[in-house]
Each structure stands twice: as C-alpha cells, then as structure tokens.
C-alpha cells in the first residue's frame, strides 16, 4: 500500500518538486525528496482530530543529530485515516529550515 495523500486546501498549479511524501505503510513513513532533509530535532507531528499528537521518529539520524538519516515513521490507530501533518524541512543548499503544514489522509 503506497501513498494516498489528500488535502484540505486546493492544490495550486505549480510544477515545483515535492519536498516530502507520506507513505501509507503501515507504519506511516515520511519520505524526503532528493536534496531535502527532515529536521530530526523537531520530530514531525501528526495531529489527529481528537487532539492526539503523534510524532514521527527514526533511530537513524545524521551524526550531528540535526536530520533524519532514514525515513521517520509513526503508527496511528488503525481506525484513524486522516490528520494534519507538520514537518520541518531543510532543503540542502538553501541553508534554511521551513515549516510545512498540510492536511493528509491515507
């Protein structure tokens, strides 16, 4: 079972490369696009409708612990199929981090 992500807001018509993708798993996996790093000091969060916050994590991080070295995962309850994803992404070469907040379903 691969990714199915749906959005609360209409997708804009841009041809920019994606920063991250959500792999439905289970468990849910956050996959960074090439050249994009996911901030490991600010673990990605999946906010569920009931207020629960699940954090993505992976035991593999870069030596400075700043970024995930393997796709972080989270395991929501089986009956939960949607939420709000927050992730701090740091594109290589940009020298910055930026926040991504998006409604997702899987």
């Amino acid at each position, binding site marked *: 079972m*691969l990714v199915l992500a749906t959005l609360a807001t209409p997708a804009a018509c841009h041809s920019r490369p994606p920063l991250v993708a959500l792999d439905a798993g289970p468990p849910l996996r956050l996959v960074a696009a090439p050249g994009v790093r996911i901030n490991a000091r*600010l673990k990605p969060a999946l906010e569920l409708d009931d207020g629960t916050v699940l954090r993505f994590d992976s035991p593999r991080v870069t030596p400075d612990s700043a970024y995930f070295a393997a796709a972080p995962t989270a395991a929501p309850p089986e009956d939960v199929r949607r939420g709000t994803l927050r992730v701090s992404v740091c594109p290589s070469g940009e*020298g910055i981090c930026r926040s991504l907040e998006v409604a997702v379903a899987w």
Partner: protein
Amino acid sequence: MRNSWIGLLLLAGVVGGTAAAIRRLPPTPSVGGTPAPELTNTSWLNADQPLRLSELHGRVVLLNFWVFTCGNCTRTVPSLVAYDRLYRERGLTIIGIHTPEFPPYAGEHDKGNLARALRRQDIAYPNAQDNDRRTWDAYGIRYWPSFVLIDKRGMIRYTGYGEFHLDDGDFREWDRRIQQLLAE
C-alpha cells in the same frame, strides 16, 4: 507506484505556494532603508528588561530570527557570537528573535529550554521569545535563520537568510555590512 506519485504531487501543490521565494540569494540592500518595526516582545533572556528599537537609536542592530531546533540556525550561532564579541563595544547590538516552528507541544516555547540552548551555545546577546510570532510577522520573515540589519537611525538596510559559517563568504559579507553601518 502511480499512487505514490499522486501523493507526491499533491504535497508539492500545497507547498508550492510558498516555495517561490526560496533562493539562496545574497542579502540585498534596500535603498535608503525602511523603518524597522518596533519590537514588542515581553519575554526576554540575557536582558534586564525588554529591548525596544526606539531606545537603541545610535546603535547598529542585527536581528537574528532563529529557533534552537533548527540546525541551520545553531550552526550559524558561532558567527553571531563572534560578531557580538568583535563589535558590541563599537556599537553593535545583536538580538535573537526566537520564533518556534511548531505548537507548544514541541517544547520550543519553553523559556527554560531556550535558556539551556543559549548556555549551550555561549550566547550572551539578548534574545526575545517570539512565541506568538508577532515580530516574525511584522518583519515578513519566512525562513529560519533570517537576518535583518538595522542602522543607527532605526532603518532596515540589509536583510537575508540562510546558514553561514565563520570566515565563509556570507560571514565576510555580513561583517562588511556591519562595519559599514558602524562607520556611518
């Protein structure tokens, strides 16, 4: 595999609205400068009382928008600490504007966590907690870390963003600009 690409494209669509501005351009001056919005933050570290730009006229001010969970930010801190040691006595005031990325559950809003981050990185210059992003928004900031250099008259003269390191090209460029404004 097809579903995978659907997901990728949908996520790309959402972030596309803000991606256009992401370019690692060198900071550029705005001719003549624009008035710097006043700081209104109430919670400060390394300061006896809240700092206000109106009380810093006559000094050059470098604002650093950062958060301790951002590696690009923390790797830039040694450069800012160096500027502080080099130029504080000559009229430079560096102010960290600590702006969380995530909601409070992530711990970035906690003053104790910020205090530990300051100690860990030997940061002696003042830092404001910008937990409600009022200063971030007032300056139109979008990325961590970002920088705003303000002259002695309270005018924004240079802005920029992105990690830099001691003695690299960006470090030297910011250093040149600081010295230029100190000399005015």
